[in-house]
């Protein structure tokens, strides 16, 4: 199979890769680029463990072809922290014990960030529906929801302080 050359940006950095026509973006990230933070839980878009953003939009990378990334900005878990500084969601997930095994965590963090980017003040129900595309089998979601609530509250407080 002849390879397709793809130019894209991943977490802000220009990246060029070659992939087969039938390769998913998830396979490219994991197998060609060494970005194994996105996980394959199902390959059918049901579990959300492979969540990334494409131009800011939450996407299951197992449902997108690598070739389709041409010209787009891809956001992955590896780009979430700012240097040494963890994103508030990352901090609060650890603080609230919102992970047990941690396999679903990258996907949840991407999805939660995407939710808060759009809706910084979500109700519990909005959080629950916003994260309904991500499966977690360990936690029962309780502590995940609390972590996201805590981050949203912090963001509101910061905003209030700045105003």
């Amino acid at each position, binding site marked *: 199979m002849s390879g397709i050359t793809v130019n894209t940006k991943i977490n802000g950095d220009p990246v060029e890769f070659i992939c087969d026509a039938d390769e998913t973006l998830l396979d490219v990230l994991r197998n060609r680029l060494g970005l194994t933070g996105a996980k394959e839980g199902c390959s*059918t878009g049901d579990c959300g463990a492979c969540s990334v953003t494409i131009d800011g939009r939450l996407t299951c990378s197992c449902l997108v072809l690598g070739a389709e990334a041409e010209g787009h900005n891809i956001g992955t878990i590896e780009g979430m922290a700012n240097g040494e500084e963890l994103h508030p969601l990352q901090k609060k997930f650890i603080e609230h014990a919102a992970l047990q095994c941690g396999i*679903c965590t990258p996907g949840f963090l991407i999805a939660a960030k995407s939710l808060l980017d759009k809706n910084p003040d979500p109700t519990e129900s909005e959080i629950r529906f916003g994260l309904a595309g991500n499966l977690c089998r360990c936690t029962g979601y*309780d502590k995940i929801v609390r972590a996201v609530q805590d981050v949203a509250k912090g963001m509101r407080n910061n905003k209030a302080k700045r105003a």
Partner: protein
Amino acid sequence: MPLDNAPDSKRKFNVVGTRPLRPDGIDKVTGRAKFGADASAPGQLVGRILRSPHAHAVIRKIDTSKAEKLAGVKAVITRDDFPDHTDGDAALYDTMYNIMAREKALYEGHAVAAVAATTASIARQALKLIKVDYEILPHVTDVDEAMKPNAPLLHKKMFTDGVDPKPKKPSNVARRFEFGHGDVEEGFKKADIIVERSFKTEATHQGYIEPHAALASMSPDGSADLWCCTQGHYMVRDVCARILGIDISRLRVTQSEIGGGFGGKTTVFIEPVALALSRKANRPVKVVMTRDEVFKATGPTSSTSMDIKIGVTKDGLITAADGTFRYQGGPFAGCSPAEFGAMSAFAQFHLDNVRAIGYDVVCNRPKTISYRAPGAPMANFAVESVIEELAHKLGMAPIDFRIKNAAREGTKSSYGPVYGPIGLGPTLEAAKNHPHFKAPLGPNQGRGMAAGFWFNFGGQSCVSLNIPTDGTITVSVGSPDIGGSRASMCMMVAEELGIGYEHVRAIIADTSSLGHNDVTDGSRTTFATGMACILAARDAIKKLCQRAAATWGIPEDAVTWEKGFAKPAGANAGNFAPLSLKEIAAASPGTGGPIAGHHEFSADGAGVSFATHICDVEIDPETGASKIVRYTVIQDAGKAVHPSYVEGQFQGGAVQGIGWALNEEYIYGKDGRLQNAGFLDYRIPVCSDLPMIDTQILEIPNPGHPYGVRGVGETSIVPPLAAIANAVAAATGVRFTQLPLSPPRVLKGIEDAKAKGKKAA
């Protein structure tokens, strides 16, 4: 060996009971943590497995010649590559048969061949070129059907064990178990009210989000390395070495981070296959399961069929309890947890007359393996449903009926032994006093409860603790950390040494670095491996005190350890300024070399565990859909080391139980094929299905642990099935005896009851 030093109930803890950040947290929130499928090796090949499309078929011939000739294919293996080294060990033989079919394919998805190729697409093509000549046989997937005399037979030589006289004809019933005491027939004669019901539950899957993955590298000389996600890498090592016929010491298994297990990763599936492929290709081979393979070819739990009969006096005392528990365990004998179902079913009651009969049944489904408190949730569903019904018939509050008949210290358990101090009564009392219990219910809502039991056990652990010259601590444990156990290990070591949590780091060592460690299962890790950590720390303290004694020139027993310092034991020992851990460590090169503590043992005295759950459910009468509106878990943890992760175990187990009760099921077609092998159709609970899961941790110290710790991981999945069924019965007025309580089933139940009501009117 159990410790004779019972927990000191007055002990004040500094670290245990707090909620520090877990040591692997940052790796896991940044995507750096390496799970099973995240490793790769130079020159690695892609391994893929060909699976039987038939539920039951003789494998006449496998022709791999075309696949072998395909460019890029480096190895093709079949049953012929697994000569029998099992030496009469029937369970090991079955494990080997399960990872690669031999004479017959016994279920849809059973592995029949495997290839290793340079790319995934070549591997896929190669699988298509393998020609398998099947002789399709009649199959059976339902437990009741499998027990019928004319059912298709899986094994011609299977004669039910445990019946007298021995059966003359083979059947699919592998074994019969019987537990209990007293005389149930006499007990029923004393009863004023008897309820007798039959129940069925469907098979469910552990549903871990991480599919099985293995990266194997095996040389022609028999030395091998394996990286995989498992609940027990020592188990993987031992089983793989025996299947492949190599020395155990030649195989080193490194455990990856594990993306959930819940019992499902307590055996091998792809690991021996990856090793055999690597041996044949003489290159590293990586095998990763697809989700479809996970559902079809790993180890879900049993589907069941059960009969329960319980009798009570007018004033609410149980006079007799009798149950029959039929569990299918897939195609091999001894795999279903029928015995644990039968043993645990009535364990929460004080009973003079009890009998539980279990049947271990084979059928053409995947080989079952443990799922969190294996066997107990289904039995509990049946028993606690009848208990609720009896309470209503008696006109007694179900909680009072349960309290009246609850097992307590001194009760002869339904499975035999007499209980020591147990926490069942306190969980029931706490439930009765919980605000949830008195909260008003809305329209179409009902409240249910159930109490559940699990055994817990200890097992083998080996821990090594090293003290570098700066006085910080590294702890090597061999128990895979699935839910944050590294944090608990660090906490217990810090507690013993009297230092800060942040100075201790725990890692999971590979199989060549430590002695054997049992699988992380049976709720054993925080209890048993944690106890080994405590004892390794005590061993290190002894050595630290020796160094201080030698430095001061006083006898060893004149030195004590207090809050991170060696001190003279009293005024007579001499007047020396205390030496800190840091100071002793810094001097260690000159005082005798490195300081390390070790402990290896087989821990016993785990102490049984009880929980009581309360659940409010709302039913949509138009669709039959159920919504959990409030849920509370009350469980005895003995002593919660890291309360956040104890709560997490309570919540996670409860939600798995909610999934089991409401939606999850293996659905088989008439062709014996699984119809819902994916997360879209096998529906585990999602975030929007659920409320917060409230928890209440009770701490009734376990006398078998120095801090009083009890395992907490499994019991929480036991009561939800019954608690929800009881809540649904309260909301609809209909008693459902079959799970899952999916919308069509509930709707039909409501409509049938209405029709019946109209008829009666």
